[in-house]
């Protein structure tokens, strides 16, 4: 259902894409509602929800009281009665109070009632570091959510993918946690087709093909990963770059197919290295490509400590040099 007041194409960044997808979704489906702290009058602290309350009114765009458990539990209740709530957690560092509702209810309502009820909600949260924000504004704890059955975890890394994946998340009949890498909210712009076409929620995206090594990443690490692939290319190494995008359920098929060909694998993420999503991917690659791997899988991640306050955050965040170094290690050690 096209809204004739909406632009057909928009040149914008990831943040604009999120906003555009929200506009599209609300215009085309009355059951979509938006709630969270500062999302209505203010249009979100990052402006992701700008214009929604003007267009769809306070009834469908709701400033909630300040409570993340509340926001998430409200969404569960709304979803149970046929709405499609898209709620915002202002920063991923404040998501923890949402976990009980997310894990014990959103993730389970369909299963618990054997399909009688369901929970088609989206929980959006900006995440990750690198924007010189205060404490608790730079977290990447996607691994915690990925471990919980019944949820989908999605991370876009480009404006177009943000648009298509968010539409898919909103239309999906189950709860989706949609994490927005805020470091790249406004970096590279792109022409986004406002065509309402969703992307699949269970496919990795191969961003660049290459036969020598597989670089597996997502979110704000993608630009650095692509940069690293360029650097490697200059050294004669053809890197395949895969954007995982849908962390859970995890499309290992695409990843394994790549590694079977390349025999080398580096996984890159911003979260603390240990017990993170990279561990699952590394484990599966090693388990399934046992005979194909030419070198041990390498993981590049944050350190196993708290994200330093912003003066030192660059020492924590993985960068393209880290990725290149890890990639080269797979050639030395084989």
């Amino acid at each position: 259902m096209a809204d004739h007041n909406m632009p057909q194409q928009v040149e914008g960044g990831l943040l604009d894409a999120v906003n555009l997808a929200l506009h599209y979704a609300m215009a085309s489906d009355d059951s979509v509602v938006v709630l969270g702290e500062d999302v209505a009058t203010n249009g979100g602290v990052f402006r992701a929800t700008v214009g929604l309350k003007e267009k769809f009114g306070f009834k469908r765009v709701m400033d909630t009281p300040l409570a993340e458990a509340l926001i998430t539990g409200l969404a569960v209740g709304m979803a149970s009665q046929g709405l499609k709530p898209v709620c915002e957690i202002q920063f991923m560092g404040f998501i923890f109070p949402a976990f009980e509702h997310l894990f014990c209810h959103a993730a389970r309502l369909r299963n618990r009632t054997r399909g009688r009820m369901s929970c088609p909600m989206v929980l959006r949260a900006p995440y990750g570091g690198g924007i010189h924000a205060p404490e608790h504004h730079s977290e990447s704890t996607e691994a915690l959510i990925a471990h919980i059955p019944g949820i989908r975890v999605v991370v876009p890394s480009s404006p177009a993918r943000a648009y298509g994946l968010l539409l898919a998340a909103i239309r999906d009949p189950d709860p989706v946690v949609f994490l927005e890498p805020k470091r790249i909210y406004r970096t590279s712009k792109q022409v986004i087709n406002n065509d309402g076409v969703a992307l699949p929620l269970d496919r990795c995206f191969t961003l660049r093909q290459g036969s020598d090594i597989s670089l597996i990443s997502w979110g704000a690490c993608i630009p650095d990963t692509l940069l690293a692939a360029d650097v490697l290319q200059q050294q004669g190494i053809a890197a395949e770059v895969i954007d995982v995008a849908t962390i859970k359920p995890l499309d290992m098929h695409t990843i394994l197919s790549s590694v079977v060909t390349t025999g080398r694998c580096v996984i890159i993420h911003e979260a603390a290295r240990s017990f993170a999503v990279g561990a699952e991917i590394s484990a599966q690659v090693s388990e399934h490509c046992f005979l194909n791997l030419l070198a041990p899988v390498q993981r590049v991640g944050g350190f196993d400590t708290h994200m330093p306050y912003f003066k030192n955050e660059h020492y924590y965040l993985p960068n393209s040099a880290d990725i290149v170094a890890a990639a080269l290690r797979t050639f030395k050690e084989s």
Partner: protein
Amino acid sequence: MTRAMTDSGHRPLLDFHLESIQFLDESGAWLANRPGFASDNWLLKAYRYMVLCRVFDHKAVALQRTGQLGTFPSALGQEAFGVAIGLALHKDDVFVPYYRDHGAHLLRSGANAMANLLLYWGGDESASSHGPPQDFPVCVPIATQVTHAAGAAAALKIKGREQLVMVTIGDGGTSKGDFFESLNVAGVWQLPLIILVNNNQYAISVPREKQCAAASLAQKAIGAGVHGVQVDGNDVLAITQAINEARVRANDHKGATLIEAITYRLGDHTTADDASRYRCQQEVKQAWLKEPIKRLQSLLLDLKIWDGEQEKALLESCAASVESQVQHYLQTPAASPQSMFDHLYADWPEAMNEQLDRLADKLERIDGGS
């Protein structure tokens, strides 16, 4: 406006007033005029369901004791609470229960309500596939259901519907953040919501006075700008009256109501609990004097609409229907092992196929091994 100078700078700011509701005293005598809704038929229906609830409850505990049921939370002594809900709610209202609402389920959840309750406490998910489509299943994580109820009420309001949402919670549950957060949003958003507290004086072993220093739980409404009222929870008429008043408020767009029903948990917390570890028999004995069924029975006898014969017939019919539901429960086959994946996602993710293979392998081993 000139103000009197005071030494401490204090001035009056706000005053609040709370009421309680009670119709029947402990002996079933009227403390107020008989309310309009309480026809003879209504009273008889309430009585019958309260007795059925108690018979069911007793049987469920017995099933657990004989290894035929899992942990079960008895509602002994709180039958008026559950039955009032069942009687006062409309079919298309949204009911968001906690885990001790057997009485409400009997009235609300169809012919196999008891079998389904047993299935639930017998460890079978299929229990919650039944019941009114809009009602929530039993909620175990304390107080979270109140937020779902607020969300459901917001949904009704957004959609312009007339129904109510009713949610229940225990006294202990009113200490958890979710309760307050939800009460608060119910106030700001003027939600068509009733929060009904079963203040049965204990949260497992923790007595009411260790849970909260306030004189009542109803007064928690004040901090949220919501209407609050306390009722005698052993008086099925009082609870019903409070629910009816709350419905009027909601329909008049006056928002939510918090009702604290004063009850007493006559049994253990669950079959896994032994209440004698933390409370004295004397207290329990006292509480038996106030219990809801005896009280209503006295009224019925007074009104001459009940006699010993009817009582005997009722007990027999309750026993029979409970027994038939127990058989239904016991004969329900366990779900297939594969069913653990049936309702995980609506759209089966290909990535999960490996899990099915693993399960198939495991089942082969189990079958092979046995």
